[in-house]
C-alpha cells in the first residue's frame, strides 16, 4: 500500500528540489519548518519523533533539505515528514505537512473487527509493521 497522509502523497515521491520548493513556500509564509520521523504511521499517531526543533529563524529551505538528508542517514527506512507551524493568532497549529521519505516497502494496515451487540462491529486499525518492536519495524 501507499500511505497517503500529508499534503502531496498523491503526487510522485518528492525529489530534494520538490522538498526545497515547498519548504521555501512555508518559510515565505512566516511558518517555522520542522522535520519529523516515525516507524508508526497510524493515522492517529499525532506525535512523530522530532528531528531537532522547528527551524524558527531559518530563511533558506536548503537547510530543510539538509536536515531531511541528515535524518535519512539515520532513519532512511522510516517515514520522514516536513511540517510547517504557523504561530499567528487564531492558528497556532500546523499549516502544511508532507511526506519526504518513506520505507521501501509499506506493508499497510490490518483492520481488526470485533463483533459486538446487535450488528455493531468495532474496528481497530493496526499497522502490520508495528507488530514488531520500535526501531525494527521497517528492515
Amino acid at each position, binding site marked *: 500500500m501507499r500511505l497517503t497522509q500529508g499534503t502531496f502523497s498523491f503526487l510522485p515521491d518528492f525529489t530534494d528540489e520538490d522538498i526545497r520548493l*515547498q519548504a521555501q513556500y512555508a518559510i515565505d509564509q512566516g511558518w517555522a519548518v520542522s522535520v519529523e520521523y516515525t516507524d508508526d504511521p497510524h493515522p492517529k499517531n499525532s506525535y512523530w519523533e522530532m528531528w531537532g526543533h522547528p527551524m524558527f529563524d531559518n530563511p533558506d529551505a536548503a537547510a530543510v533539505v539538509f536536515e531531511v538528508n541528515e535524518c535519512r542517514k539515520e532513519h532512511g527506512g522510516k517515514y520522514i515528514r516536513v511540517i510547517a507551524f504557523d504561530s499567528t493568532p487564531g492558528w497556532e497549529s500546523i499549516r502544511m505537512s508532507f511526506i519526504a521519505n518513506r520505507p521501501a516497502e509499506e506493508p499497510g494496515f490490518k483492520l481488526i473487527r470485533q463483533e459486538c451487540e446487535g450488528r455493531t462491529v468495532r*474496528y481497530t486499525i493496526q499497522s502490520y509493521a508495528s507488530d514488531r518492536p520500535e526501531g525494527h519495524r521497517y528492515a
Partner: protein
Amino acid sequence: MNKMTDAKTVTGAKRYAAGVMKYAQMGYWEPDYVPKDTDVIALFRITPQDGVDAIEAAAAVAGESSTATWTVVWTDRLTACDKYRAKAYRVDPVPNAEGEYFAYIAYDLDLFEEGSIANLTASIIGNVFGFKPLKALRLEDMRLPVAYIKTFQGPATGIVVERERLNCYGRPLLGATVKPKLGLSGRNYGRVVYEALKGGLDFTKDDENINSQPFMHWRDRFLYCMEAVNRASAATGEVKGTYLNVTAGTMEEMYERAEFAKSLGSVIIMIDLVIGYTAIQSMAKWARDNDMILHLHRAGHSTYTRQRSHGVSFRVIAKWMRLAGVDHLHAGTVVGKLEGDPATTKGYYDIFREEYNPMALENGIFFDQDWASLNKMMPVASGGIHAGQMHQLLTYLGEDVVLQFGGGTIGHPHGIAAGATANRVALEAMVYARNAGRDIWNEGPDILRDAAKTCTPLEQALEVWKDVTFDYASTDAPDFAPTPEVSA
C-alpha cells in the same frame, strides 16, 4: 422616488397622547444617534410602498422590530423606553435601484437574550417582514457586538482543530455527496462511500434529504458507512469521515442518531438548516461535548436568501451559524451550478474564516466585524464542480474549504475510486504549483494536463467534463463596485 422627510421626535406629554403617530416621530428615527460599541446594528434594504416616505418606513422597521405597536401605548412610560426603542439612524438610496433604500438600525444589547439565535431573530426578522407599508424588506447585514458574540459557543470544533483531528493540512479537504441521493439501500450506499474514500477523498456526505426512509433506515446506513470508513482508513492510512445526517423529526430522535454515530467512531455528523436555529444550537452543544465535527447543509436557504429585494442575505445566515456553532456550512462555489457571484461569495467566505472582517461594500460586507476569537467555520463548496476547474476553485476559495465533487466523483467513466483519485491528484498538483509560485489562474489547464500524464483517471476526467461550465447571470450581486484606492 419616494420622499425622504426628516421627521422630528415628539417629546413630553404629547408623545404619549392616545392615537396613531408616525414612527419617525415616536423616537424610532434618530439621525444624530451614534451607535454604541455594544449595540447590535442591522442593515435592511427597504422597498416602501408607493408614496410611503423612506425615513418613515425605516423608522417603522425599527419600531416593529423592537418595541412599537401600531398605536401609542401609555405603558411605554413604565419602561426605560428610550433605551429599548431601536433607532434608525441612517437611510441611503440604494445605488441603481429605484425605490430601494438602505436603512441602518441600532438595537440596544439588552433587547436580546444571551446565546439565543431564536431570540435575536424573533426580533430582527419577526413580524416586521410582513409589514404592509413595505413592498419588500431584506436583511442585508448585521454588526454583532463583541459583548454579544461572547455569549455564544461558536463552532464546536473549528477549522484548526478539525484539521488536527483529521491530520490533514495545507490543502482543501475533498468530499463527495453520495448519489443518487435517494433510493440506494444501506449496503449499496456504503459501497459508494468505500470507493470514494479509498480513491482519495477525505469525506463523503449524506444528502440533505437522506434521513430514514423505507429504502434505507438510518441504522443500516450508519453501520454500512462506518464499515466503509474504517476499511478506507486501513487502505490509505488516513483519517476518513462520512457526514452521517442525523436530521429527524424530534430532538430526541436526533440525539439518539448522534449517539449511535459516536458509538461507531464517526468523526463527523450532519444536520440540515431546516431543523431550526434552536435545534442547531442544541446539536452544536452536543457536538462540542462529544468531540464531533458538525456539518450543516443549508437546505432551504434559497427560499429567503436568493432574491435581492426580500428576505435575508446568506451573509447574515452565515454570521448566525458561526454564532450557533456549526463547523461546516455550504457557501457556494462561484463556478458550479448554484447561485453565487465571485465578489459576494468572497464576502461569505471571509465571514466564515476570518478573525476580523473590515467593511467591504464590494463584497456586500457593510460593517467592521470582530469575531472575538470565535472558532472559524469551514466553508463547503458543492454543486456542479469538477477536476477541470481546480485552478479556479483554489484561486476563488483558497485552502480552508471542503471541495465536494459528487457527480464529479461518482460520474467518472472508470468508477468512483478513479473519480476520487482524479480529484485528489488535480488538487495536490494545483496546490503544489501555487506554492511553487506558478500563475495557476492562467496556467491551470496546463498544470492539470501535466498531472494527468502520470494519472490516467485525471486524464479521463478532464476529457469527460472539459466543456462543462455554468455561466448564468447572478441574482444576488453586490450593490457597490470596488472603489479605486485614493493615494496621496
